[in-house]
């Protein structure tokens, strides 16, 4: 099929952020980071329950050894990124700006491995349940965003039927190129992982959605995709193409109801990184202890994509890139649209850290708290079709009830509105505040009703 004549899928709303950021790193092959002396592995990575730490200070650990055991449904196993000694359970600056607990591992430099799992090369003839257990044993989480345990996402609630698996290779965030390089450099791991997920769920309709600015990755995946029976879907370059609801809408033209999950419309969405890690866990039997991270920003000397072990402090990632050439004013973990600003260089890389970005003062968005001029750009840009400016004005005026009536809870916090706002109003922050407040009110009302 001729590529240029192919139909390119997309959704309504959204924005077109500057594309210059990707060019910094998308041609850089992934480097493997050298071994460090110290790793701090965050105990709690997601909003769920923290896993139970099973090592004590002073314990000797080997690479891939289990450090913390998942406890509860929304919780994932942690494995040691290298061999060495557990120096303690310490408080380190967390990615959310508040100190968080981490397991401090002093590497012995030998990087000795254990073999925690048996490789399952013939997974096609294996019981999906066994594979599902492997998914949770290997500590797999969603590597795109919220670090939600993959096991949970692959456990379809009873009564719901899924028939489509969508792999998210859109990587719509500016600057990030980790998934791009992953797809380009190891397409077979991604495809194999997708096929395994398909096998677990009993699905044979598998799509991989990729934005067309990654045409080399599309071509590379298409070389092998026939063998796996997977369809590659080129997508319009548009932010937030990688958001679950928008991706499903673009690829299979189904609309996830408000407050609903992809499973409500028979879909499961996984990140390509997760699929690759899953392939490793099943076919090679190794848990998730490292990931590709884009370390980028104009102020960096050599921006690039690095394969970093979980627990690497970001200062080391910056060092790998040769340091800075100019004063950075902002350090961001994740993408520039949805990532979190940090005020410490000691924050460790977690399983969901897709990027480490350093922005200069000129590049970073400087918020102002002026009035809305009602230009309506945020309304055009909102992928969820919300009147963001009216919501924000209402929230600032203390009318959270008004915002709730106007569906503030449907906000994805994708940042499209604040990106286009000519007044540089902190729209996402305001909306997030209202969402938190409404959630609190609802929880209080529920608690009251139960009482």
């Amino acid at each position, binding site marked *: 099929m001729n590529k240029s004549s192919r139909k390119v899928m997309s959704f309504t709303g959204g924005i077109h952020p500057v594309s210059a950021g990707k060019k910094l790193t998308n041609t850089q092959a992934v480097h493997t980071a050298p071994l460090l002396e110290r790793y701090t592995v965050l105990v709690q990575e997601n909003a769920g329950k923290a896993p139970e730490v099973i090592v004590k200070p002073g314990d000797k650990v080997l690479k891939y050894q289990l450090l913390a055991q998942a406890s509860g449904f929304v919780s994932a196993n942690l494995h040691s990124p290298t061999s060495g000694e557990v120096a303690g359970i310490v408080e380190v600056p967390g990615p959310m700006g508040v100190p968080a607990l981490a397991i401090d591992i002093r590497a012995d430099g030998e990087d000795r491995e254990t073999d925690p799992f048996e490789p399952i090369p013939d997974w096609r003839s294996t019981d999906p349940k066994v594979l599902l257990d492997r998914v949770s044993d290997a500590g797999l989480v969603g590597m795109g965003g919220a670090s939600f345990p993959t096991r949970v996402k692959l456990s379809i609630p009873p009564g719901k039927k899924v028939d489509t698996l969508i792999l998210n290779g859109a990587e719509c965030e500016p600057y990030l190129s980790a998934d791009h390089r992953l797809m380009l450099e190891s397409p077979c791991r991604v495809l194999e992982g997708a096929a395994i997920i398909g096998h677990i769920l009993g699905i044979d309709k598998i799509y991989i959605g990729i934005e067309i600015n990654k045409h080399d990755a599309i071509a590379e995946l298409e070389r092998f995709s026939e063998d796996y029976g997977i369809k590659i879907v080129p997508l319009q370059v548009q932010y937030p193409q990688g958001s679950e609801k928008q991706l499903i809408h673009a690829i299979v033209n189904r609309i996830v109801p408000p407050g609903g999950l992809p499973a409500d419309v028979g879909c499961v969405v996984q990140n390509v990184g997760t699929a690759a890690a899953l392939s490793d866990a099943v076919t090679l039997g190794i848990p998730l202890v490292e990931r590709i991270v884009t370390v980028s920003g104009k102020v960096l000397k050599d921006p690039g994509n690095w394969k970093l072990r979980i627990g690497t402090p970001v200062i080391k990632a910056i060092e790998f890139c040769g340091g800075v050439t100019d004063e950075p004013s902002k350090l961001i973990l994740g993408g520039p649209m949805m990532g979190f600003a940090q005020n410490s260089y000691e924050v460790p890389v977690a399983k969901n850290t897709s990027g480490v970005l350093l922005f200069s003062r000129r590049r970073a968005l400087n918020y102002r708290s002026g*009035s809305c001029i009602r230009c309506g750009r945020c309304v055009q840009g909102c992928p969820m079709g919300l009147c963001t400016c009216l919501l924000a*004005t*209402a929230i*600032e*005026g203390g*009318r959270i009830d008004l915002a709730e009536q106007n569906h503030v809870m449907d906000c994805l916090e994708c940042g499209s509105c604040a990106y286009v706002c000519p007044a540089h109003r902190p729209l996402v922050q305001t909306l997030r505040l209202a969402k938190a407040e409404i959630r609190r009110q609802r929880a209080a009302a529920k608690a009251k009703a139960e009482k």
Partner: protein
Amino acid sequence: MKYLELTVGAVLVYNFVLSRFLGICPFLGVSKRVSTAMGMSGAVVFVMTLASAITAAIYRYLLHFSLGGVSYDLGFLQVLLFILVIAALVQIIETVLQKLSPSLYQALGIYLPLITTNCAVLGVATLNAKANYSVLDATIFGCFSGIGFALAILLFSSLREKLELATPPKAFEGTPIALVTAGILAMAFCGFAGLC
């Protein structure tokens, strides 16, 4: 054509609030929320229509009549009787409303009794008498005057809900800004002058 003039005139050109400046008290008092403003304007439309009909009938048949060949003119009783009728009417509406829609009754609060002495209602009755409308004309005029009030208060209350979210200087918060807004609104209504 006559009715068109009567209605358009009452709603737009000689809008009770914005061009005759009658009924300002509820216009300012009950316009903080669109919902209560709608309730209030519903009550005002009802009272004005009914009051117009009854007072026109009284004016025509009770204040000017001839008995045994002698024609009597009780015009001097006009204001007195009008107030009496309107007061009774409002009392009845209040009683009914309290039973049927307690929330609206709560929202209207003191303003419902205030309709009694509302210049808009008395005004419509007096204007009817002055123009010597027939009962039908007076009823239509009263009804559409009420609708004019409703239009004005609807626009005004939606603006005020919006202004509530604005950040005016401290000195102009609340009533001052509302009055300025009402003034500009009245200015916009000036454009309709001469439509009929």
